[in-house]
């Protein structure tokens, strides 16, 4: 099989760091770079520090990646933590370490084997956290699916997709799970969360064991075992709540 190697270096005038472009097959050493662009099959032997990383092909990094911007339109696998200012995923990204970012848009598939810390997370694809126990963010929006065996904590969580987690906690939690797209074939209808705890909670199509909040709206398709509400409470007709406690004020839907 013919393998092509095409790695180009551009030494930018304003910056001594080299740009790397891998169009065929190539391996780069650990170190600092400017732009790293992989259109073919690339490897990095250790920790990579770069201004930006753009992968349209396949890229495997033997260490962690520290960059301002990571565009993953192909397949990226890294054996260490990922620290990035912005992350865009249209392909597949696998991080075998923790993930820290200012903002992330995941339209593809992301698997993280560690904790996730972010300012903003937008998940329209599939995000799975395997090794880690928590996702911490200021704002999370999800029209796809988030799965983890631990806690999601954020000021604002808005989900039209599905969330599977042990706990969701924060200031505002709005989950309206509905059947749509590819997930309708592979997933069951509702989000399942043992504990939801927030100041304001709005749920639809959610199965939860315990829901604790100040202002709570339980929409249709919800199955809640225990609900504790200390403020305004709304329960839709199609919802089931087994045990209800707290000094709530019930409003008619």
């Amino acid at each position, binding site marked *: 099989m013919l393998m092509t190697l095409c790695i180009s270096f551009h030494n930018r005038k304003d910056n001594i760091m080299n740009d790397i472009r891998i169009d065929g097959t190539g391996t780069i050493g650990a170190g600092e770079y400017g732009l790293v662009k992989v259109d073919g099959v690339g490897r990095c032997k250790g920790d990579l520090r770069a201004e930006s990383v753009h992968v349209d092909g396949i890229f495997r990094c033997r260490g962690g990646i520290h960059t301002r911007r990571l565009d993953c339109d192909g397949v990226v696998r890294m054996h260490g933590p990922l620290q990035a200012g912005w992350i865009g995923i249209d392909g597949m990204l696998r991080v075998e370490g923790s993930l820290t970012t200012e903002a992330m848009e995941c339209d593809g598939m992301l698997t993280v084997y560690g904790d996730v810390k972010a300012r903003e997370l937008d998940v329209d694809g599939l995000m799975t956290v395997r090794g880690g126990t928590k996702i*911490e963010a200021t704002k999370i929006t999800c029209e796809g699916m988030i799965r983890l065996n631990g806690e999601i*904590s954020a*000021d604002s969580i808005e989900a039209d997709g599905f969330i599977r987690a042990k706990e969701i*906690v*924060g*200031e*505002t939690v709005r989950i309206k799970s509905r059947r749509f797209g590819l997930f309708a074939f592979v997933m069951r209808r509702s989000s399942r969360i*043992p*504990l939801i*705890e*927030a*100041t*304001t909670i709005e749920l639809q199509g959610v199965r939860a*064991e*315990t829901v*604790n*909040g*100040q202002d709570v709206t339980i929409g249709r398709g919800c199955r809640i*075992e*225990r609900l*504790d509400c*200390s403020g305004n409470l709304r329960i839709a007709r199609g919802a089931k709540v087994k*045990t209800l406690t707290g000094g709530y004020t019930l409003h008619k839907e």
Partner: protein
Amino acid sequence: MSKQCYVVHVAETKHCSAKEVRMEQETDLISKKDLLSETGISYGQLYRWKRERLIPEEWFIKQASFTGQETFFPREKILKRVQEILALKERHSLDELAGMLSPDAATSMGIPASDDPLLARLPALLGRDAVSAGEAAFTWGLAQIGRLEHVPQKSLEDLVKRTIPVLVGLKLVDTVCTVYRLGSTWHAVFTRGSTRPLFDSGVTVSGSFTLEEAISDMRASPC
């Protein structure tokens, strides 16, 4: 000149987990629901402060209850911490508050002006001006014990020098330092949780302190 051998012990008690011991000893707990109603804070604030490390994760103690699982906190510590945050949050950002209230052992910080000779000598002993919270907390706690037990200044300085490398990576929360004397040499041992090390009769325990308490006392002391 006889060769002296100095040992700094870092021990982790293995009979039972730190969490089990802590739960046995900290019987004065407050439930999450009671905490919110007593202090008037919301779930959102509580979890934001947890994310910002203003409230240590170790204080969230999960226990089985008839409703499944409930979270409790050490009453005195959490009430004090919430009052501190509420009092300070108007004047400081959450990041600043995190540095002030829950510093990592590695967090860089200043040492308050003090008459204590050990604290005054700390930058010289370290060979640098930047002092981490762990180093400051240990030196502060050791200085208090040194005063009470009349430990010679030279012995304290030797102990600081030997202990500094061990402090790297230690958490301030839940780390207890026990200072003891073996013959004519003082040593320090660090443990996690409420478990205290047990020594044979040839060892004299001079005192113990948590790194977290030491840093709080240091901050509260008049400059």
